[in-house]
């Protein structure tokens, strides 16, 4: 029997393996989409039992420090800080770290907020000579600016911000990220209700196509750029649907470029923001999960779909490519450094399965898909392609890529409905189908590049370039870290 099987042509084997892999990926992603729907149901029920605005009118809101690493953000930094200072939260401070910018970021801050040199002392030890100065303003006691002497990674800058922060909960924000009015309240609520919670992540959505006035999203629409539309579908699938699914399984692991509120003590316990690796600020949740498992604690990291932040996604392929390469490098490094999650008896089996999913479908999936598709082209050129099998593979590939995205778009309406025009989601549904031809293949190449950089340990903070927002104003398009 084996000899018969081996006698089958190599082309048939390749297509069969690809069909099996694509079918497995489809069922895994479909399961996640269904779990996400179930989780949204659970979160809607929980929301009926809470009244966050009323609760946070009291003096019992846990205090939050927002950490904002900034490098060469002169164009956006003042408006970004102003938006944070204006946020509706009873106990808030903002710690900006100017990571040795060369474009006058610090001067803009000093001028806009009338900052003066401050004698503020750090809670944790700061290496001598690493900080050039600390600035504050008497009329804004909740704002501190730390000026770094030398540039480093974003995680390192966040680590310095943490040393100067004083509140028990911390959130690392980006100069290009806009938080909704109630976002902090929604993120802080699980900390208020459950003593075991150490981290809460929200949902980040592309702001392209939306109107932002005075730090608030006043209109939400689909992006004008096609590249941004593809990314909108991706964000809803990865940052809303999949994250909610992993939340239901107590396995929220990777939070690249995200919105996360963490317990300061827990961050210190897991030695976060060390600054040595690209993935340092990506794997915080994994480290928190591992740490909690040592003490037999579960559900320490939560994902709240009602907590939304907006970020401008790049509209040029070159910038997207660099961003994605860096993200997947971070993911690869994070998975490697937290490999203990795979076979750790103290963790639940579902966390091991979640880790396996990330390795098989997120990390190595693009390699398998790309090699397989190259092989298909070669087979086609040599006239050895089994056409019926290829049709099956293509169908599974298309359906598997489209259905989870469509389910994520449907989830948007229930979990965090923001689109104000009825046809925005319908038009994005077309992109859920189109992304399988071209965009998905390009993403796979960027992922492979990220994996390659992780293998060779290549380090960068991330470059940036300018784009234009829907209103035509010049806006900083920064690579989300």
């Amino acid at each position, binding site marked *: 029997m084996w000899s018969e099987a081996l006698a089958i042509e190599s082309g048939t084997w390749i297509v069969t393996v690809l069909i099996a892999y694509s079918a497995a990926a489809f069922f895994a992603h479909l399961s996640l989409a269904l779990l996400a729907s179930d989780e949204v149901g659970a979160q809607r029920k929980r929301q009926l039992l809470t009244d966050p605005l009323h609760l946070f009118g009291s003096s019992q809101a846990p205090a939050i420090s927002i950490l904002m690493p900034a490098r060469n953000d002169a164009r956006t930094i003042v408006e970004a800080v102003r938006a944070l200072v204006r946020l509706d939260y009873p106990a808030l401070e903002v710690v900006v770290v100017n990571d040795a910018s060369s474009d006058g970021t610090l001067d803009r801050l000093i001028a806009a907020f009338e900052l003066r040199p401050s004698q503020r002392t750090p809670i944790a030890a700061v290496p001598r000579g690493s900080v050039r100065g600390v600035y504050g303003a*008497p009329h804004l*006691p909740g704002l501190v600016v730390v000026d770094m002497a030398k540039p480093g990674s974003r995680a390192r800058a966040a680590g310095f911000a943490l040393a100067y922060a004083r509140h028990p909960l911390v959130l690392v924000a980006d100069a290009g990220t806009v938080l909704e009015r109630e976002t902090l309240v929604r993120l802080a609520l699980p900390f208020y209700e459950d003593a075991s919670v150490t981290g809460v992540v929200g949902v980040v959505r592309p702001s392209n196509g939306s109107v932002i006035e005075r730090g608030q999203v006043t209109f939400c629409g689909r992006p004008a750029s096609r590249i941004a539309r593809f990314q909108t579908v991706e964000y809803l699938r990865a940052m809303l649907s999949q994250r909610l699914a992993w939340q239901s399984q107590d396995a929220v692991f990777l939070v690249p470029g995200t919105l996360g509120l963490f317990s300061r003590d827990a961050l210190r316990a897991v030695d976060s923001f060390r600054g040595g690796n690209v993935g340092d600020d990506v794997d915080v949740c994994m480290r928190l999960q591992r740490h909690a498992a040592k003490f037999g604690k579960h559900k320490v990291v939560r994902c709240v779909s009602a907590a939304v932040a907006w970020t401008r996604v790049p509209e040029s392929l070159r910038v997207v490519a660099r961003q994605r390469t860096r993200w997947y490098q971070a993911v690869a490094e994070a998975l490697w450094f937290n490999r203990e999650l795979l076979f750790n008896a103290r963790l639940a089996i579902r966390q091991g399965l979640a880790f396996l999913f990330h390795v098989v479908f997120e990390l190595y999936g693009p390699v398998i898909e790309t090699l397989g598709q190259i092989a298909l082209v070669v087979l086609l050129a040599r006239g050895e392609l089994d056409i019926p099998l290829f049709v099956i593979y293509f169908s599974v590939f298309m359906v598997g890529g489209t259905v989870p995205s469509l389910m994520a778009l449907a989830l948007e309406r*229930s979990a965090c409905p923001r689109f104000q025009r009825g046809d925005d989601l319908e038009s994005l549904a077309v992109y859920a189908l189109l992304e399988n031809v071209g965009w998905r293949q390009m993403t796979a190449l960027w992922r492979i590049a990220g994996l390659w950089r992780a293998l060779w340990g290549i380090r960068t903070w991330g470059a940036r370039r300018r784009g234009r927002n829907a209103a035509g104003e010049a806006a900083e398009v920064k690579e989300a870290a």
Partner: protein
Amino acid sequence: MANPAAEKWLGQLQGALAERMDRWAAAVNVIAGPGLERGTAARSEAEQVSSAFERFLAGAILGEEMVQIVSGARPDAFWAALEAFSDGSTAEEWQMLSRPLLGAPEVKREAGRLRSFSSWRRALAARRVGLLEAPEMCEPLRKALARGPERVTIQAALALSRLRDLPGLAWLLQHPEATARRTRRQLVTVLAGFGLEGAGELRTAIAGGKAASPIHVAAIEVLGLHGDAAAVSALENTLRAGALDARVTAARALSRIAAPESSAALLAALDDEAWPVRAQAARALAAIPDRAHVAALVAHVGDVSWWVRRHAAYALGAHGEHGRQALEQVERGSQDMFAADIAREVLQQLEWSEEIPGGFASVV
């Protein structure tokens, strides 16, 4: 059923099934989507209900008419309107509105759901029923409180706190295990809701000085928030011999009460082995400035813990001219770099104090 174990098992099974059904119903609702038309209809019904409440309070319609109008609305619209309306109403208006609403079929149905198999449904019923100012709801709410689990207990407790139900408060304090996973902050909100009428129960609960559970620690915090001078002695006992969380909270409560007679206990707490207690004790001394505290505070500006150094230095800042002089001496003469740094920070804050909104006291 004769066998209690089987009865318990059956109850658990029914509860689990009911929970699952609720969750699936919500999930189906998610897949179906909220729908713009449905959302608009619900908003319109909620507006009609609100309008009926307003007309009743204005004397334009009778209670029976109001009940008839609101009975036609969907349950979700009715409760959403009631909750929104509760925010802007006075206590008298609320009492006036609650009386006729007790006769509304939806309110009766919701009260019945306090006995539902689904714990989530019981919790939601407790939250909704607790909106009404109706003492007759206390008894069913107390039963839900005792039945648990924790999420039902907390919703029933919040409802009972609005009704100022002291037996409910007593039950909570006698059953700390029922709220063991809840945070101190949430429990403070619950206990503070019982108002000053509950202070006696809170004092009794912490009288032994051995309070350690979250609800008892929250009781200590609430006594401080009430500024309850009668609790000072019990708080001092807790500060001396309580568990770590209780000692920290007792120091904070004494700071809020700001009774000068607490000085001795707080000065003693400056030498506690746990830094959070030392830090809170130093902070508490800022609230009762006395020249006699200065030397002890200066000694702690050089503490090994940053938080103790910080609170001791800011407490000195709150001690007027004597404190300022002590800080200047530390800044100029201390061999301890960390002590000099924190003294410098506080001196700058004192310099800036006229420009700080709320003055220096707001940054202590």
